[in-house]
């Protein structure tokens, strides 16, 4: 069973042409940086090529066959994403460039219209800068207060004072999964309490949508945002899910072409959902390719992806334990049920960038630094961490290669 799971991941890896490419030093590539961006299966690359080769035309207003075909492919990709996260209807999915832009859309549109002095925004100490900086600016502009759910040394949310923290809160914005520590947020606790306090909830799903099945209606979140490039899709395309009633009431964000119904010299009426939020020519090709990515993930099965990553993370933690006597520090929740396939670590007193550079010579790609969570690193007292992150195409061989690279680093730096 275990062998067959790993064998399936090996087989899936062959769908990703880049993974077959050795490094310039002739090493086998062990790509352990999917939390930064995932690799792309051939099906997604083909979708891009197919669109530009056969279907390229501007969408929505063309009356000729080609434009109709492009529009159909574009809107059917939206429907695929809607099904993928179980939105009630495709109109609740708005295309954006990425997670960051989707958060900014909510901040500028919903935030400016709904927040004022005396209101509060509640986020967490774990957030990526993309889910922190927009709220800092929104708070500064509106006079609202910015509050934080604290995390403990493992990066686990501290909820004992949640009720008090929620007083006066209009918006709760938090990541589903921490990109630095892999912590899975207890949405089942936070969302009902936030709603009871009268707040709307935005969930940053950049690190969850690629890795396990997300059901926005079962979670009962008001906004859910994610990036295509972390879920086997191309860069430059992401999405905002919002409940229709909220999106309908929100003013437009970017304005111009395509998002309008009728324009006069003095006055304009806006298009309906979702196009009200999609000004200008959209990223048609990448949206269509994200539809192909969603097809690919659905074909693999999101429950299998989640189970594989959980098992691989368990295997990695077990193998990494052999370095603990040599000063390896592993960060993040110890409870595997509360973490995703992200492992942040430091090896003795070797700087994370040195670790990553040495791993690079062994063909192992890990990220090192602050992972766009500078306040969290400061709070934890880590100048930097190295981070390995897994996806459906990673195997135990990738983990073994990581372990080999760490052994080399420990030897070079004469660690224990």
């Amino acid at each position: 069973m275990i062998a067959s799971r790993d064998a399936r991941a090996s087989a899936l890896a062959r769908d990703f042409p880049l993974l077959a490419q050795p490094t310039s030093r002739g090493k086998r590539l062990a790509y352990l940086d999917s939390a930064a961006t995932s690799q792309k299966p051939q099906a997604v690359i083909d979708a891009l090529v197919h669109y530009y080769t056969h279907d390229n035309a501007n969408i929505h207003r063309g009356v000729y066959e080609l434009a109709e075909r492009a529009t159909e492919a574009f809107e059917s990709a939206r429907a695929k994403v809607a099904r993928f996260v179980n939105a009630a209807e495709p109109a609740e999915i708005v295309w954006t460039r990425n997670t960051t832009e989707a958060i900014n859309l909510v901040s500028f549109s919903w935030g400016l219209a709904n927040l004022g002095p005396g209101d509060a925004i509640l986020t967490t100490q774990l957030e990526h800068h993309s889910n922190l900086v927009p709220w800092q600016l929104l708070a500064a502009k509106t006079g609202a207060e910015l509050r934080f759910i604290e995390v403990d040394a493992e990066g686990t949310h501290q909820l004992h004072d949640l009720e008090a923290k929620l007083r006066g809160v209009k918006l709760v914005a938090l990541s589903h999964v921490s990109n630095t520590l892999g912590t899975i947020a207890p949405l089942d606790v936070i969302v009902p309490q936030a709603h009871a306090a009268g707040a709307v909830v935005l969930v940053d799903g950049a690190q969850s949508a690629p890795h396990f099945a997300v059901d926005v209606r079962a979670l009962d979140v008001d906004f859910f945002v994610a990036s295509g490039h972390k879920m086997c899709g191309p860069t430059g395309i992401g999405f905002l899910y919002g409940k229709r009633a909220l999106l309908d009431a929100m003013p437009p964000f970017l304005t111009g072409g395509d998002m309008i119904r009728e324009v006069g010299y003095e006055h304009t009426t806006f298009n309906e959902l979702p196009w009200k939020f999609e000004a200008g020519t959209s990223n048609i090709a990448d949206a269509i390719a994200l539809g192909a990515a969603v097809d690919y993930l659905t074909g693999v099965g999101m429950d299998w992806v989640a189970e594989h990553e959980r098992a691989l993370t368990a295997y990695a933690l077990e193998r990494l334990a052999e370095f603990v006597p040599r000063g390896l520090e592993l960060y993040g929740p110890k409870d595997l049920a509360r973490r995703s396939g992200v492992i942040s670590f430091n090896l003795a007193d070797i700087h994370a960038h040195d670790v990553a550079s040495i791993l690079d010579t062994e063909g192992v790609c890990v990220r090192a630094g602050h992972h766009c969570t500078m306040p969290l690193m400061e709070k934890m007292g880590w100048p930097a961490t190295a981070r390995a992150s897994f996806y459906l195409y990673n195997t135990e061989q990738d983990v073994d290669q990581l372990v080999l690279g760490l052994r080399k680093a420990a030897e070079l730096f004469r660690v224990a």
Partner: protein
Amino acid sequence: MDDFYKEYILDHYRNPRNFGHLEAPTATAEDLNPLCGDKIRFELLVDAEGRVSDVRFSGKGCAISQASASMLSETLRGEKLEDVARLPQERVLENVGIGISPARMKCAMLGLKVVKSAALGEIAHWPDEAHEPH
């Protein structure tokens, strides 16, 4: 990069030369590399002829940034301050050897940036062309 983590680099990292502080430095500067969190401070003592007579550096960070600064510190005594302000990046590269990947160039060049800033009395530009956003 294989070649970069050489014995003498790691020696400079583990046992940095001229590490610490001067009692009454003539010129000082410090800076950090936000990408890595590398931090370096240089303190220079300049004699009546305008030459560096003593030097100390302090800081923390990766082996590349700290070893580069340590090796650089050994080359500064006797240099005229105005020449220190114009040191080229070759001064670091000839110390640490070639083979630094572009991604790590900022680490290697941080000490040089700081020591030039000290000599200039203002923040020097990065001595390489890679200006990466974070």
